[in-house]
């Protein structure tokens, strides 16, 4: 087997011959069943469009209120940044730092790094900046928890609407759209394909 035809499974290290899966299909490891690579239909344009959309909507998700509550004639609203602030003012500084990281800093960084990868690729350039960005982005992925946050927000809104007059805010919709666009972006390109395009000297 020549190295170019061979692919190793990251989950079990089995070296196997590269095959081309059908469009929208996946290639699974022959031994452990992990996904080796996919052949998505979207392509670079779709990934870039979705990531740009996610970036814009994530800004909106930070600017608008997540929810508004009225109780005994008083009004209160919470923003994404306010979640960490509430934890910090409640005396839980380490928890506040973690919440700030996984709901705001890491997701913003992740989107920025993906843009720094996709924009040069779309312009037909393979730069060391793009390679550095994609490497950092894949290391950060687990810690960008917008999808988990969205589930938590929905759960607490159901919980709160039982005791108070609660209106979901614009940020909730923006956040839901950000999560969907990020998922769509990830589904439109395969990282193995991105890395092949980013090969130095191409």
């Amino acid at each position, binding site marked *: 087997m020549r190295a170019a035809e061979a692919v190793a499974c990251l989950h079990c290290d089995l070296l196997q011959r590269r095959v081309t899966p059908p469009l929208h299909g996946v290639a699974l490891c022959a031994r452990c069943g992990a996904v080796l690579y996919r052949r998505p239909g979207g392509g670079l344009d779709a990934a870039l469009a979705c990531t740009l959309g996610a970036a814009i909507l994530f800004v909106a998700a930070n600017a608008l209120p997540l929810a508004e509550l009225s109780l005994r004639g008083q009004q209160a609203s919470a923003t994404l940044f306010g979640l960490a602030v509430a934890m910090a003012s409640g005396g839980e500084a380490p928890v506040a730092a973690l919440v700030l990281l996984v709901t705001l800093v890491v997701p913003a960084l992740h989107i920025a790094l993906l843009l720094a990868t996709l924009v040069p690729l779309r312009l037909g350039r393979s730069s060391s900046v793009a*390679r550095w960005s994609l490497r950092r982005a894949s290391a950060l992925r687990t810690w960008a928890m917008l999808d988990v946050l969205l589930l*938590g927000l929905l759960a607490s809104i159901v919980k709160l609407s039982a005791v108070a007059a609660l209106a979901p805010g614009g940020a909730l919709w923006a956040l839901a759209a950000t999560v969907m666009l990020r998922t769509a972006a990830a589904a439109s390109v395969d990282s193995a394909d991105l890395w092949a395009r980013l090969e130095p000297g191409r």
Partner: protein
Amino acid sequence: MNPGSAAAYGLLVCEICALAQRPARAAAAGCCVRCGARLHLRRPDALARAWGLLLASALFYVPAYALPIMQSNSLFGAQSDTILSGIAYLWASGSWLVAMVIFVASVVVPFAKLAALTLLLATAQRRSAWRQRDRARLYRLVELTGRWSMVDVFVVALLAALLHFPPFAQVTPGPGAFAFCAMVVFSILAAAAFDPRLTWDSAAGARQAR
């Protein structure tokens, strides 16, 4: 090393960009020729690190469930809720779906994860060939589900951010939130430190290869 593996062919596989390469080709010592990430045959000290992080995570299980994750104050008195009493309250007040989501994410997943990682680490350490494909599937499940345990922390964060009407009604996070976060973070790090390829580096496989 297991037969048919890249390692058995003398190839190192980059964990970031998946390029299989000969160690000698690496431009900077120990780094991937394509993406520049550190190259390892297997994640360094995978078992020792994963055991250590798993133990750190396990230490926080008792305080995470025993200490209150939030305190509610109102004119009628103060109330402390642990994760479990919060779920019981949701269930009793008729929000079954939300109660179930929180129960699965913050009770079932953490305990299943602790058991699964213990099993994966113990079998990999003994270089066991027992049900390798199922163990591989279990690891992928652990990797996928671990982060969803954070749901309850976000619930407390939104309640604390929104319910801030002193002295009528106020929610503040409790010390259980810290223990719970520590438990979840250490268990995610433990899963990341373990190398799933060790599942396949079994003693039987090594004998076969010789």
